C-alpha cells in the first residue's frame, strides 16, 4: 500500500489522532486526564450505541431515523415514572424496552410494508413520541432514585480490597488480558486460513495493526485504572458495538442491508425480501434508542421532556463522518465508531477549553460538512470509470 492509498483508507483515523493531539495541547493536557478519558465514551454512550443501528438504516439507502431522540426520551420517562410509582428496576427496564420494541415494530412495518418514506414516517414519530414522553412525565422532571437501577448502568466494576478510587489495577489487568486475547485470536484465524489454503494478507501489516490496537487498549485501561476502574456502561457499549460489528461484517443477515442499499431490485430478484430488511433496520434502531434512554437517564440521574433533543442528529452525523455513504450500501461499524469518537473528542475538547456553546455548533457543523465533502469528492474521482 502506498502513502496515498494509506491516507485514503485511514483518513478519519488520522483525523482523529490529529484532532486528539490538537485538543490535548490546546487544553494543556486536561483532555488526557484519567477522568476525562473515562468520561469520553460514557458521555457519548448514546451516540456510540445508536450509531450502530443508525448505520443499518443508512445502509438501506441513505435513510435515517429522526424519531430516536424522542424514543430515547420516552423510554427514560417510562422507567423513571414506573420506579417513581414504586415498581422494581427490572419491571421498569422491561417496560421501557418493550415500548421501544413496539415503536420499532410500528416504524418497521410502516416503512417496510406500507412503504411510507422513512424521513416522513420518523419525522412524525419524532413529534409523536416526544409528546407521549411528556404525557408520561406530566411535563415534570423525574429523578432516578432507585440505587439498583443506577448500579446497572453507572457503577464501576471493582474488586473490593484491591481497588480503590484512583488506583484500580483490575482495570489494567483486564486491559492486558483483552490485548493478549485480540493478538491470539488474530494469529489463530491467520493460521487456520493458511491451513485451509486461503489467501492471507501481509504478516507485517497485520502485526503493526494489532500492535497499535493492543497499545491503545492497554493505554485506555491504564487511564481507567487511575480513575474508578471499568465502568459498567462501557460493557453495555461494547456488547452493542461488537454485536453490530459482527452482524454487519460476518453474517448473512448483515449482508442484506448492504445489498438492499446497493440495489433493491437486484436484491429482491436474488430471493431476499427488502421489506424484511427495512423492518429490521428500524426495529433495531428503536430498540437501541430505548436502551440508550436508560443509559442516558441513569447517567444524568433525571428525565425531563427535552431529554434527547437532537440526539438523532449526533448518531446520523457520526455515521456520515465515519464514512457511511449518504446513498446507502456502504459503511462499517468500526468506521462509524471512529466518526462517533471523533465527534466526541471535538465536543469534549471544546467544552474543556471553554469555547462558547454557539461556536461549538459552528465547529460541529463544519466538521460534518467537511467529512462528507471529502467522502463525496474522493469517491467521485476514483469511483467514476
Amino acid at each position, binding site marked *: 500500500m502506498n502513502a496515498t492509498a494509506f491516507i485514503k483508507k485511514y483518513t478519519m483515523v488520522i483525523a482523529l489522532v490529529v484532532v486528539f493531539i490538537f485538543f490535548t495541547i490546546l487544553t494543556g493536557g486536561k483532555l488526557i486526564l484519567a477522568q476525562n478519558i473515562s468520561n469520553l465514551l460514557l458521555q457519548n454512550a448514546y451516540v456510540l450505541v445508536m450509531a450502530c443501528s443508525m448505520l443499518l438504516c443508512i445502509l438501506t439507502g441513505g435513510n435515517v431515523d429522526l424519531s430516536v431522540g424522542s424514543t430515547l426520551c420516552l423510554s427514560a420517562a417510562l422507567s423513571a415514572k414506573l420506579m417513581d410509582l414504586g415498581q422494581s428496576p427490572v419491571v421498569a427496564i422491561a417496560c421501557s424496552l418493550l415500548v421501544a420494541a413496539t415503536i420499532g415494530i410500528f416504524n418497521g412495518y410502516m416503512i417496510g410494508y406500507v412503504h411510507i418514506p422513512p424521513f416522513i414516517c420518523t419525522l412524525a414519530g419524532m413529534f409523536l413520541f416526544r409528546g407521549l414522553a411528556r404525557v408520561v412525565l406530566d411535563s415534570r422532571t423525574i429523578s432516578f432514585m432507585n440505587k439498583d437501577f443506577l448500579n446497572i448502568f453507572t457503577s464501576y466494576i471493582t474488586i473490593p480490597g484491591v481497588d480503590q478510587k484512583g488506583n484500580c489495577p483490575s482495570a489494567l489487568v483486564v486491559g492486558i488480558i483483552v490485548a493478549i486475547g485480540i493478538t491470539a485470536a488474530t494469529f489463530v484465524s491467520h493460521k487456520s*486460513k493458511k491451513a*485451509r489454503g*486461503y*489467501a492471507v494478507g501481509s504478516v507485517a501489516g497485520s502485526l503493526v495493526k494489532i500492535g497499535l490496537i493492543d497499545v491503545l487498549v492497554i493505554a485506555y485501561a491504564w487511564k481507567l485504572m487511575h480513575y474508578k476502574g471499568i465502568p459498567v456502561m462501557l460493557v453495555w457499549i461494547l456488547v452493542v458495538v461488537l454485536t453490530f460489528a459482527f452482524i454487519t461484517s*460476518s*453474517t*448473512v*443477515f448483515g*449482508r442484506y442491508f*448492504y*445489498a438492499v*442499499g*446497493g*440495489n433493491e*431490485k*437486484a*436484491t*429482491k*430478484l*436474488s*430471493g*431476499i*425480501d427488502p421489506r424484511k430488511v427495512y423492518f429490521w433496520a428500524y426495529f433495531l434502531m428503536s430498540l437501541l434508542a430505548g436502551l440508550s434512554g436508560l443509559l442516558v437517564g441513569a447517567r444524568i440521574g433525571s428525565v425531563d421532556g427535552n431529554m434527547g433533543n437532537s440526539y438523532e442528529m449526533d448518531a446520523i452525523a457520526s455515521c456520515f463522518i465515519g464514512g457511511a*455513504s449518504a446513498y446507502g*450500501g*456502504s459503511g462499517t461499524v468500526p468506521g462509524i465508531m471512529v466518526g462517533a469518537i471523533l465527534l466526541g473528542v471535538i465536543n469534549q475538547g471544546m467544552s474543556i477549553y471553554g469555547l462558547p456553546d454557539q461556536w461549538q455548533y459552528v465547529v460541529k457543523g463544519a466538521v460534518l460538512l467537511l467529512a462528507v465533502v471529502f467522502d463525496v469528492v474522493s469517491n467521485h474521482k476514483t*469511483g467514476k*470509470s
Partner: protein
Amino acid sequence: MSDYILEMKSIVKEYPGVKALNNVNFKVERGEIHALVGENGAGKSTLMKVLSGEIPHGQYTGQVVYNGQECKFANLKDSEKEGIVVIHQELALIPELTIAENMFLGNERRNGMGVINWNETYKQAQEAMQRVGLKETSSVLIKDIGTGKQQLVEIAKALSKNVKLLVLDEPTSSLNEEDSKMLLDMLLGFKKEGVTSIIITHKLNEVAYCADNITVLRDGSTIETIPNPEHNIDEERIIKGMVGRELTDRYPSREHNISDEVLFEVKDWTVYHPVYTEKCMDQNISFKVHAGEIIGFSGLQGAGRTELAKSLFGKSYGSRISGHEYIKGKEVFLKNERDAIEHGLAYATEDRKTDGLVLSDTIAWNTTMAKMEKVSSKWGIIDTAKEKRVAEDYAKAMKTKTPSVDQHVGNLSGGNQQKVLLSKWLFADPDILILDEPTRGIDVGAKYEIYGIMNDMVKEGKAVIMISSELPELLGMCDRIYVMNEGRMAGEFSAEEATQERIMSAILSNSNDTKEAQA
C-alpha cells in the same frame, strides 16, 4: 485528398494502472457514417469522451483536429457549441418532463428576460420531431413513450442543437430489429443532409448495412480502418480485426443430448399488469423444456417475454396470475423469489445494472448473493475466506477479467458484469436457468464464452431458457424456439425448421390475427 471533418492524432489516455487509449489515430470524412467497433474495454467510449470534452483537454495527450482546427474542449458545452453531440447508451432524459422540455433542457427557448417562450418551445420541438419521424405531440411526458421513441427524442434533441457531427453510443442495443432498422435508415437520411455520424455498436450487421468506413479498436489501439463502400462487408472480416483471430464459429458446438424428461412445464399462464390490472401482459402461455435442452423465446419488444419469465420466477412481476407451473413433473406454487430459487429456478435479468447486480458491492458479494447459505454456517455466519475462494473459482471458470474478486462490480466492463451475473445464478445451483437477453451490449468474444457456459449447463442435464431479441443467436443456440407476440404464443419451431423469415412471419401474421380479432 479526402476532406476530414475530424482527425484525432496519437491520442493517449491513461487511468491509474491502465492505458485506456494507446496512441489512437482516428479520421472521419465529412458526410460519412463511420462505425467504431471493438470488444468491450477496447477504448471506444473513452475515445468519444476525449472527443466530446467529457475528458477535458490536458487529461489526455494527442491532438483533436475538428474542421481543420485543433480543439481544446474543456467540457461538453464546448464541443456542443461546435456541433458535436454524443448520445450515450444510457439515455439522459427526464421521465417526468415532456418531450419538448427535455429537448430544450439547458438550451431553453426564452426571451430577453429569461422567461421561457413555451409556444416557440413546442413548435420547434414538433419540427425537430418531424425530422426523426416521431408522430407524438411534444407535450407528452417522456415516461409515457417507449425506449425506441425515447432514442428518437435524443436524436431530435441533437438535431435541435444544429449538429454537425453526431456520435451514437450503442443506439440500438435496447431496440428490436424493426426499430433498429428505422433508426439506421434515419442516419442514412441525415447523411444526405450533410450530417456526419459516428456509430459505436456491437451489432455487426448494422455496421455492414450503414457504415462507409469501419475503424476497429483493440486494447486501446487502432487496428485498422476498413472501407465499406458497397455496404456489403463480410461480418467475419470485421470480427477478425476485433479479436485478432478468426472466429471460425460464432456459436460453440455441443452434443445434443436431450432427455425425455420434462424439467419445466408451464400451462395456461396468464399475467396482468401490476398497476393497470385490466391490461393482460401474457395470455394462456404454455411451453415446456426438457433436461439438456436450450429453448429460446423470440419476439418484438413488449411481446411479454420478460413479464412471463419474471412472473414464473416466484411471482416477481404482475397481478392476477393464473396457470400451472410444473418442475420435474410436479406442480409447484412459488410464493416469492426465494421459493423459486429453492425449487431450482434461476432468472438472470435483462438489465444487469438496474436489477441484476449490486454495483457498489464486490464481485465476491454479488456471486454468492442468491444462495448465501452455501458459504455460511447454519447460524448465518459467513465464511468470508470460503466466499472469496468460491468467487475466485467462478471468475476463473468464466474468464472474468478482473484484478481481484474484491473489485466493485461497477468498475467492470459490460461483458464482465454479465459474467458475474451468470456466476451468481450458476452458484445458486439451478436446474432451470432463464436468461433474459444474456448477450445484450457485450462483445463477440464474451458472447462466445457465454454461449459456452450455456452449453456446459445443458451438458450437466439442466435446462436453459433464453430470451433474446437477436434472431441469429437464437437460431445458433436453441434446440427449439417459441415465438411470442403481444402477450400470446405465436408459434413454435424446432431448430431444423426455424429460419429468420419464418419467425418474423409468425410474429407478423399473429399481429394481423390479433388486429382482426379486435376489429
